[in-house]
């Protein structure tokens, strides 16, 4: 039976924890709003880029000179997994679920006898993966010292990926991130980025019989566009990741705050009971002392 003082200490400790989780929840809510806004602002570029690429890819189809980024290397031996997670914790199962998805993929690929390399973006994913697959991580990147993840960071990652691809270090690249569906639902997603898949459902613009002019030529543009397209996809994944992280954090902190509240209630009840028991005990002692006289 804990003493009254113990209980009092525990109540105040839980109270301060609750204050922290509450604050974190509010911070996450504010950051989520901003992250959603940025994801929305980036959308037009992505959409246009997809339309342009779909257009070009259609004309490059079946072309033997099509760039490798679009057609693939013709092999399927080495896979690069780009695992994008958050740098910080306190966001529920967000990081763990992305890592789990990546791990399932790794096990499956290894079972098929394929080589796997990992590019860890975000500190948490790196922490979790390096225990099991430390020797597979070829490059890591975190944004701890970056205030707001921008296109520059995505560009850097894309640059590294392309450099490795040019050096023939992998055949297929897959990007893992948390897709932001809404505040309560974030889905860990695996998306193939190399070879680039032309987005579906984009309709060709009606040219009214005219033909596209390319300057410089078609292949040249495609060659310049594909690396950017990959950069854009990574950028979008990073933005979605930020929004998902904040949403997951908000939900997790909301739960934590509620749990702390329940715990405080329970402890307060226990404290009051103990206090009353002590008073009763003291009264009995006084009364029986008086009777004995």
């Amino acid at each position, binding site marked *: 039976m804990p003493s009254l003082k113990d209980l009092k200490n525990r109540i105040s400790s839980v109270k301060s924890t609750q204050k922290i989780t509450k604050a974190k929840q509010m911070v996450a809510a504010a950051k989520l709003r901003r992250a959603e806004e940025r994801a929305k602002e980036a959308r037009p570029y992505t959409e246009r880029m997809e339309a342009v690429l779909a257009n070009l890819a259609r004309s490059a189809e079946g072309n033997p000179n099509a760039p490798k980024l679009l057609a693939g290397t013709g092999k399927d031996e080495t896979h690069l997994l780009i695992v994008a997670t958050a740098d910080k914790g306190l966001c529920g199962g967000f990081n763990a679920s992305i890592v789990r998805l990546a791990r399932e993929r790794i096990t499956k690929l290894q079972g098929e006898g394929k080589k796997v390399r990992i590019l860890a973006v975000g500190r948490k994913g790196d922490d979790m993966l390096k225990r099991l697959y430390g020797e597979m991580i070829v490059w890591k990147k975190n944004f701890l010292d970056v205030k707001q993840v921008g296109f520059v960071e995505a560009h850097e990652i894309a640059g590294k990926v392309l450099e490795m691809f040019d050096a023939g270090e992998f055949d297929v690249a897959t990007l893992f991130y948390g897709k932001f569906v809404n505040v309560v639902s974030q889905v860990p997603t695996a998306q193939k980025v190399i070879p680039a898949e032309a987005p579906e459902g984009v309709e060709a613009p009606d040219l009214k019989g005219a033909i596209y*002019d390319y300057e410089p030529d078609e292949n040249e543009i495609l060659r310049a566009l594909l690396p950017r397209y990959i950069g854009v996809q990574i*950028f979008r994944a990073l933005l979605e990741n930020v929004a998902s992280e904040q949403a997951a954090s908000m939900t997790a902190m909301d739960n934590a705050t509620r749990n702390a509240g329940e715990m405080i209630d329970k402890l307060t009840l226990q404290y009051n009971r103990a206090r009353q028991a002590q008073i009763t005990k003291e009264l009995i002692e006084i009364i029986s002392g008086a009777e004995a006289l």
Partner: protein
Amino acid sequence: MADKLHFNLVSPEKELMSADVDQVDIPGTEGWIGVLPNHAPLMTALAAGMVRIRTGNDQSRIFVRGGFAEISPAGLTVLAEQAMPETELDAAKIAKAIRDAEEDVADADTDEKKLAAQQSLDSLKELQAAL
């Protein structure tokens, strides 16, 4: 509005402009392109430089660096890697862009890339001189 050109300028981080205008001049890698309404479909890579937009008697300029322009019957779309309205542009930013471009020239491993990088660098220097 048949005699207006629908113009969109988007950078990865946001949409900078979406309007109906009269004429837009864009810096293509192969030279300047003046785009008027009903231009033939065209797709081009962009060098660094100023995009000039004319609406009636108003003119505005936006600095872009790298990217693409697509002209379709729906209008002109500029996908710029970096974009900045003229008003936000200053000597320091240009100097930085020039440094980046110089690095690009140094890093270029093929003649084609080198040429493209050199062109961007030249147009940036021109811009610096004009400012």
